[in-house]
């Protein structure tokens, strides 16, 4: 549902603008650079899932946490925790062979709102195992929330460890 929400938002926005292609291009680049659409999908999903009494205050609190996470590099709120990711992998791997195909993996990332339709992901020929799936999902969620310190920072490693521990 969040995916259709995002699709409708995108088409309604670009339909309303005047046919001025350089500004449109500018706008699209802005969206991509800051990964706004993924962020909005994440916010909308959080709202609909937790259904707080006061939606604006709730959104403000999530954004504040993201802002401090960006600045201080501390672990930030994940929408899906480890058990959800493991459960999702099990749903995909219905025959229990321990790995999923590349196409399934790409579709799953699209459903989670973690990659755009035309992003090219590398296919290394082997199936994607559960650990690799979890690792990639967490990495992409971090990218979206704007983490800039990279893999070598201490906080990334500590946060990642927290998540990989069941």
């Amino acid at each position, binding site marked *: 549902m969040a995916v259709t929400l995002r699709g409708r938002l995108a088409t309604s926005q670009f339909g309303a603008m005047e046919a001025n292609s350089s500004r449109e291009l500018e706008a699209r680049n802005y969206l991509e650079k800051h990964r706004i659409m993924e962020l909005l999908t994440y916010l909308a999903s959080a709202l609909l899932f937790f259904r707080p009494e006061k939606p604006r205050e709730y959104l403000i609190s999530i954004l504040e946490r993201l802002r401090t996470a*960006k600045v201080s590099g501390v672990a930030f709120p994940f929408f899906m925790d480890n058990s959800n990711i493991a459960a999702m992998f099990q749903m995909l791997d*219905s025959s229990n062979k321990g790995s999923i195909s590349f196409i399934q993996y790409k579709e*799953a990332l699209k459903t989670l709102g973690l990659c755009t339709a035309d992003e090219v992901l590398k296919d290394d020929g082997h199936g994607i195992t559960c650990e690799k799936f979890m690792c990639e999902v967490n990495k992409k969620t971090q990218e979206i929330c704007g983490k800039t310190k990279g893999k070598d920072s201490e906080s990334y490693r500590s946060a990642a460890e927290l998540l990989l521990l069941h």
Partner: protein
Amino acid sequence: MDATTAPHRIPPEMPQYGEANHVFELMQNMLEQLLIQQPEDPIPFMIEHLQRDNDYVPKIVILGPPASGKTTIAMWLRKHLNSNLLSVESLMAKEYSSLAADARTRYQKFQTLPDMLLVRLVQERLREEDCVRRGWILDGIPETREQALLIQTLGVSPRHVIVLSAPDTVLIERNLGKRIDPQTGEIYHTTFDWPPESEIQNRLIAPAGISEGETARRLLEYHRNIVRILPSYPKIVKVITADQPCVDVFYQALTYVQTIHRSNAPFTPRVLLCGPVGSGKSLQAALLAEKYGLVNVCCGQLLKEAMADKSKYGEMIRPFFEKETAGPSYIIMKVLRQLLDQQDCAERGWVLHGFPRDRDQACLMDSMGYKPNRVFFLNVPFDSIIERLTLRRTDPVTGERSHLMYKPPPTMEIQARLLQSPKDSEEQIRLRTELFYRNSAELQEFYGQAITLNGDQDPYTVFEYIESGIINPLPKKVP
């Protein structure tokens, strides 16, 4: 089967929450502002935007020919909505602004302002705190298409555009009586709007440029420009005729400005139709189900099906049905739940009629989580009900139903053998209608935002009213 691509079972609480809190419009407004301003750091910008909470402040443009009453209407709206008014004169008169000083000198020299300067003045004024918080009303700006486009490029877009219109002769005549109070700036008229206090009367002066020739010239220019401005605001324009008393124009403008436009938000209709017997609920429900693919949930029908199926609930209902009394609410609710909980009902939406009939049943349904998002009450006067129902006939041989007035039987032979159902006798109808009206006041109170319609018209007219009730957003309650 891959579980991630199968149709997802979305719990109905999610779309209900989304609709009730206008989540879609919230996100859309935020995205609009992000795209227009394109801040370097989106997250603090979004936090500030959410805290400001100014999605629904007035953003109005009022356009119209000279002497149509634009400024009067603009001033009244400003007072009523507690907003800010911007016009060419007020922008130029601003203090502490180099742009405004520049504008004043140019106006004195050339009698007009260059478009870019005017638009930048508007932008500067709109950035101020009070315009951001309480909205704005533009009086007579944009004057030309170029100004309209420039304003749009800077990211300023109104939510409502009001265009006043009147025949030219009326306007020329009206303009001759225009008088201005130099102290307050209010506009009066010698015939239509004469101030009662004599001290105001003594101060009034006639403004420059109200002679017939001058007005005609300005009208020509206005007509040339307005035709090219209107296409910039395709869905938000409302034309109000200015050839009526001021108060009427004001009330029309006010009602328009307080409507919310339809948005692209996803919406599954969950419609409840209420009304006395014979008001047309089943017919309207069938029409709605056919046109929009909703699931037609007719309570009476469901119960009869349950009894025919000899299901567990059907057996419980049967004794009540045979005695012709209403069954207990909780059993009816259980039968309804079986249908409403199914996947296609939640996905496509439903239209319910025949239940609830009183406040307790409505509370029960509400507590189980089945909240309709549109409720309609069909009002039909008692005589029409009698006419509609007592003339119903059934053919005992073929089973076809007909109506002596609206759908007469094809031949006299058939008409001779038609029978009337005992349920359609006048006393029975009277009893049932009285039962409905005893409970209807409480029901209407329970469903606060119900829409009442006149059911005493032909079915397709009533259907159109129901459709517009479903499609348009519910009017916001004015505090």
